[in-house]
């Protein structure tokens, strides 16, 4: 299954991330964000960070999870390539794996995660999350 793909958007970056489950699609959305900064396939899972989030909706969960990755990039220089995600009701427990940004050549930045065109679609055996980010 394709992990993620980018779609045209004039000023920002738009992508769709896929997975068999919501958690897998969310992980791939994280990878799609990292891939806007550097080639995610080159990142080694050498460092881990854990966090928990509680939100009132799945849309907010998507935005909060991706925003937390952005926060880790800017404050700890962390780039995510993999994640163990446990979602129970409105709570997410995350352990994300990746490496320091210093070890990679970067080609872009993500300024913020938007709600614009935010979509979560679930068909049997496939989940799609669509996000537009400010770059």
């Amino acid at each position: 299954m394709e992990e993620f793909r980018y779609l045209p958007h004039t000023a920002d970056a738009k992508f769709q991330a896929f997975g068999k489950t919501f958690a897998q699609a969310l992980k791939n959305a994280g990878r799609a964000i990292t891939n806007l900064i550097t080639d995610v396939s080159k990142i080694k899972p050498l460092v881990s960070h854990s966090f928990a989030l509680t939100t009132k909706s799945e849309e907010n969960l998507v935005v909060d999870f991706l925003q937390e990755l952005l926060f880790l990039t800017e404050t700890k220089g962390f780039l995510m390539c993999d994640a163990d995600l446990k979602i129970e009701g409105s709570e997410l427990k995350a352990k994300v794996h990746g490496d320091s940004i210093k070890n990679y050549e970067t080609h872009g930045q993500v300024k913020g995660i938007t709600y614009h065109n935010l979509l979560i679609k679930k068909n049997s055996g496939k989940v799609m999350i669509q996000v537009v980010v400010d770059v």
Partner: protein
Amino acid sequence: MNIKTIENAIYEIAPEGRMRVPLRIFASEKLMEHMRTDKCLEQGMNMTTLPGIYSHGVMMPDAHQGYGFPIGGVAAFDIDRGCISPGGIGYDINCSVSLLSTNLDKKDMKPKIHSVLERIFQRVPCGVGSEGAIKLSFDELDEILNTGLEWALKKGYSDENDKQCTEEHGCMKEADSDKISQKAKERGKNQLGTLGAGNHFLEIQEVDEIFDADTAEIFGIYHTGQICVMIHCGSRGLGHQTCTDYLRIADIRFPDIAHGLVDRELAYLPSNSQEAKDYFAAMSAAANFAFANHRIISWNIRHAFRDVFNDRVELPLTYHIAHNMAKKEDFGTGHEKRRLLVHRKGATRALAPYHPNNPVRYMTTGHPIIIPGSMGTASYVLAGTEKAATQAFASTPHGAGRLMSRHSANRQYRGEELKSELEHRQIYVKSASWRGISEEAPGAYKNVDEVAQVSQTAGIGRMVARLKPFGVIKG
């Protein structure tokens, strides 16, 4: 949508559906064609559905699709019965442009351009995740958030001329650092003095053409070939987080509003709510961070030039102007006078001559308006007009506006080839990454000459000078 031509370079869409007021669009036929290729016109119409919007919504010649508000969108709201919309200001609060003039000529610069670019590249961190050389405590960060340029002045990074030639004198007075979240402060704490990436840049430019010599002289632009320096950046991670925080507050505190919106990114806070006051105070604080950031970067640029030339080189600030901001401004006179909250997202304030908020130095001309082009194309300096005040809430375009997505630009252009092509034209680029160049290819942007010309034709700006790039630094 029913688009009517009002006069040369001015179109209008009358209210339809949930629009409360008309949408006025400043554009040439060609720029209108570009606007029809993405969703910006629809976004402009959506913008006019917000409560308390006054008179009409505005779209600038360089408008293009953003999220919620179009980039290049201007909307003014009743101070008491309107709203404030964080997405109508943008994630990069006070993304702004500074223009420094110099006493150098191109012939002085030519043999030393690479040395100067190298020195600036060493002094001004750019690129993703870059950290500044200035390490701040949280207390010091709070002082910057509350006082902006005043902090830089106190520390010796700035001077009195910088203050006079900065919008709001570099300090939004209603700022309150307590309204900025801890997360935003953690993001911004180590980023003071950094450029960032994306479309942020530093440019060494030469004056290419002067259209109005008298005004140009007042602006510190004296002759063609004169070297200037342009800085384009904003409030970095701190501003971005602040926008995110208040969009979430809008969502949580006013769920009924959120559900009733034509586009969720138009989330707003009602003017008379505490949350709206808090956001304005937070936005002002983030703006102050950007004002201070520009002055640190200018200080480093001045030192880089002095390292290469000598202490006699001067780089006074011509002006520092914002293009993602909301301001409380007065319009009209006598009984018609009213205070409005003007949202400018990817648009620039443009005060007419004799407006009292102009610096004394620029009272007879109106303050300089700076329209940066894309890498490899021109930038423009304009002056404000009365017509901009009456028809566009004292606003002009902020840049050339994107035509092509970053994704498409990366597929069409290669950074190494572009760099080489630009060097062939004697434009030298230093970038933190190749993709930083290809995404910013000139072909990915609208024609800045057209944007400036249309501003003049529509009467919302008066062309003063054209600058062209000589050296570019990109994140």
